[in-house]
């Protein structure tokens, strides 16, 4: 079976004034379907950039990013938006819930953007909220929820489209340890155990230990971590 994700000699650099800062340098890697991969690295090493490239939120300076059968960086801007909407679930460090939508509407939103009937989107969102233990908060606005609860809503939102790939950028970075564990349990349960691929960026060794495989970014290259 072909890998779900393939990075082919991907480089990414940023212009900072007159200087060019390289974050990724001709790095290649593959991630299999159903894998839970943790990505570690120092601040500014390019972890979030990698996730942005996988989601089509950013474009590589050179090389190609393949997800399933699609070369993400060669898609048009519109197709990348559709790709993200239909095939990727995203969990952010700062939850990024829409403050003007209720919990239920936040979860429904990606499904609704695809034009799915509101009844089926409603049913899926409701069952996901129940699964993350927040069905009783469905009608509330995000600002009434704790950080852990907000992240659980974000996980439900990432799963509502039943995407095969879920990307999580420091999902526990803004939570205490106990809440972080709950969030990780949920992610684990709904992704790896459901046969989905989870790519998770983290600073934490403990979080990384839960993964099937840990990659680190050093000097712009993605490598297998020596200490697991």
């Amino acid at each position: 079976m072909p890998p779900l994700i393939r990075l082919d000699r991907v480089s990414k650099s940023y212009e900072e004034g007159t200087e060019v800062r390289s974050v990724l340098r001709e790095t290649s890697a593959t991630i299999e379907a159903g894998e839970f991969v943790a990505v570690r690295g120092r601040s500014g090493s390019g972890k979030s950039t990698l996730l942005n490239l996988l989601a089509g939120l950013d474009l590589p300076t050179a090389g190609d990013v393949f997800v399933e059968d699609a070369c993400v960086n060669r898609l048009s801007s519109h197709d990348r938006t559709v790709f993200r909407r239909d095939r990727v679930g995203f969990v952010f460090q700062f939850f990024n819930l829409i403050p003007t939508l209720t919990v239920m509407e936040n979860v429904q939103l990606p499904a609704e953007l695809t034009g799915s009937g509101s009844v089926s989107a409603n049913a899926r969102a409701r069952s996901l909220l129940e699964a993350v233990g927040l069905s009783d908060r469905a009608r509330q606005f995000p600002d009434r929820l704790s950080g852990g609860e907000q992240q659980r809503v974000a996980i439900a939102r990432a799963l509502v489209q039943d995407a095969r790939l879920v990307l999580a950028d420091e999902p526990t970075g803004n939570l205490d340890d106990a809440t972080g564990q709950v969030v990780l349990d949920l992610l684990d349960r709904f992704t790896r155990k459901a046969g989905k691929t989870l790519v998770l960026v983290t600073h934490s060794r403990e979080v990384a230990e839960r993964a099937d495989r840990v990659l680190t970014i050093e000097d712009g290259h993605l490598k297998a971590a020596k200490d697991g």
Partner: protein
Amino acid sequence: MLSPILLRTGLRDLRRRPLHTGLMVLGVALGVAVVVAIDLANESARRGFARSSEAIAGRATHQVRGGPSGVPEDLLRRLRVDWGLRASAPVVEGVVVAPDLDRQPLTLLGVDPLSEGPFRTHLGSGSPAAPNLARFFDDPSAVIVGSGLANRYRLGIGSRVRLLVDDRFETVRIMGVVRDAPGASEALEGLLLMDVGAAQRLLRTEGWLSRIDMILTEAEAARLRRDLPPAVRLAPASEQAETMTQLTAAFQLNLTALSLLALVVGMFLIYNTVMFSVVQRRAVLGTLRALGTTPAQVFALILVETAAASALGSLLGLALGWFLGQGAVRLVTRTINDLYYVLSVTGAPLTAGAAVRALGFGIGAGIVSALAPALEAARVEPVAALRRSVLESAARRRVSDVALAGLALGAAGVACLLLVPSSLFASFAGLFGVVLGLALLTPAATLVLMAGIGPLAARFVGTLGRLAARTVTTSIARTGVAIAALMVAVSVTIGVSLMIQSFRSTVENWLGLTLRADLYLAAPRPARSARPPTISADLQARVRAVPGVAEVEVFRAVEVASPEGPVALSVADPRRERSADLYRFAEGSPAVIWSRVREGAVLVSEPFAHRRRIPVHGGVVTLQTDRGLHVFPVAGVFYDYASERGTVLVARPIYERYWDDRGISSLAVYLSPEASLEDVARRVRAAVAGSALQVVSTRSLRRGALRVFDRTFAVTEALRLLAVVVAFVGVWSALMALQAERTRELATLVALGLTPRRLWGLTFLETGFMGLAAGLLSFPTGALLALILVEVINVRSFGWTMRLVFEPSVFAQALLVSVAAALLASVYPVLRLGKMPVAAALRLE
């Protein structure tokens, strides 16, 4: 395209940020209110005029008109008997003043009830058997009024109304009150109906009619046109109304343009608030994009939000505009009465058309203002949208692009002004192009100014001074728009003030040159009525006999027909020479000009030359005289600010050669050198006692003329003030936005030990710099605006040449207003700063 949930996020965002939404709504509401007020005033004036024209002209297709004396009564008999044209009705028309009814000018319409049936319905069927109609024939003082006038002044059958007719007071009695047709309340406003014979006696025009109304087929009209005697002519019934409408068109267009300027300032405010909303919601918009919302959806979301707020603002603006419109209609009607014709309008009802236009303007302006921020939001890639300051830095990068666009727009505006010289619409388009072009240059100019002010401020105030200047620079996306809005509003103040001052000083100068006599005597003239008041011959003799009077000069002002429409004709005594400063384009000296005038040439006023496109040399004017059409050569063009319609001046002997009228409209009295003005004035007043003749000194005549001038510009003043109010709100919103964005930075400064007093100082310094920049940049813009208004708009609208006066106090005042508005706008944000929770603000992402 927008899913219901997306739509909900936008609309809820409006609700969650009431202050921000309120500012957007306020921007639209103020702009729309000004446009609605002027629209309603103009529309009401137009409708009022149309209704009263209809009321006077009725269903006539043609009118037989004559010279200043009118049409000989005998012609009516010949039309009916010799030509067999039975559908003809005699009309005697004059303007009188009712001193006890708020000195209201009223149109006296003398009609023949027996001939009226096919023409007008004011008298019902026109049957002599109708109630009170018989009294119409018996009682020479019987009049019929409309119910509007009767109700307003509590007049009923039998009420007596005192009238000022020429130089006399007369009393009439109300014999009937006519109900206005539904929805046509203006039709009979200001109209007094009388029997034609009684009207002739009242106006002392026995034997003469003002006109004969006719209902003719085209064939009959062609035959009549050929066979009529030379002293009279057949005109289409609509001619008078069309001429009057054309006269006020430029005045009304000027008001509309000024009101649109207020909407443009409002648009800056909307742009600012929408841009603020986009900047503040960057993270949310980025998340939406990351979740799969397309750029088109983000674009639509911003536009829908703005349209919703604009719709609310337009509705509020409509209500506020209706309220302001009631005041504006009074100002506009008063000016039309002062300058153009008698018009009576009692209110400015809101029409469906005005409401639709207001909503269209408001929502349209909102959407246009939001286009740039919406594009900005849609264009940014989601990963960048998730980062801070992207929009700000994008805006900074685009300052030079915006400046270039400004230069291009300004150049297009100048090209419009220069290349399309005859179109007033193109002139206003050019004016808007220049002003908007300079507004777009404002951010770049602000950066240059701040680069100079920063080091200076650092020297005097220290690091905070430098920080304040840099804040204005680094937040140019926000500050630039606010400064541009304030700059435009202050420039309008400068431009309009300079224009009014230049105009006023020119008029003052002109009055000094024209009013050379010591005393003037004239009957009150309510408006530019077709039939001017006439002074009785014996009164002239009495004035000449007063000891101390050295010379009496007589004037006559009448309206005569011409193939191009009615012409105001001034008849002057050519013996006394006028100052050379009164003429332009004249060939030779005033002595040469006056000798040509004595020989039969005419002088035309500047607005007349402008309207009729009379060339500098070799022009002619064709006038309908009592001897038929006559072509008069034009000897010169003179400056005249008394009438926007323009005047033709003819020497009295020439007038008497071509016209039969021997009346006099006013007298200019020159005193003997030893006589005292007060004594002679007292004696002249005694000599004319009992008449309505007014004896005024040159000084009070000049004061009166300037009072009319100031009244004419009252609407302009009000509009100018509103533009400043809108700009003030714009600066305020920009400051609120700026502060919201810099909360963390300001909190850091406080954490580092900046005292509240110095924090306030910093904010005041920033806003002071913004006001200073707007004030300084408004100098060239305002001066340019004045130049365009004086040299282009006024010349093309009214044909008046003015001497442009750059009064330094106007600029000083503008700078003061600008800085004060900015500082005042910062008071609330400064108070809010005092309540900033520093610890929480420091943690803000």
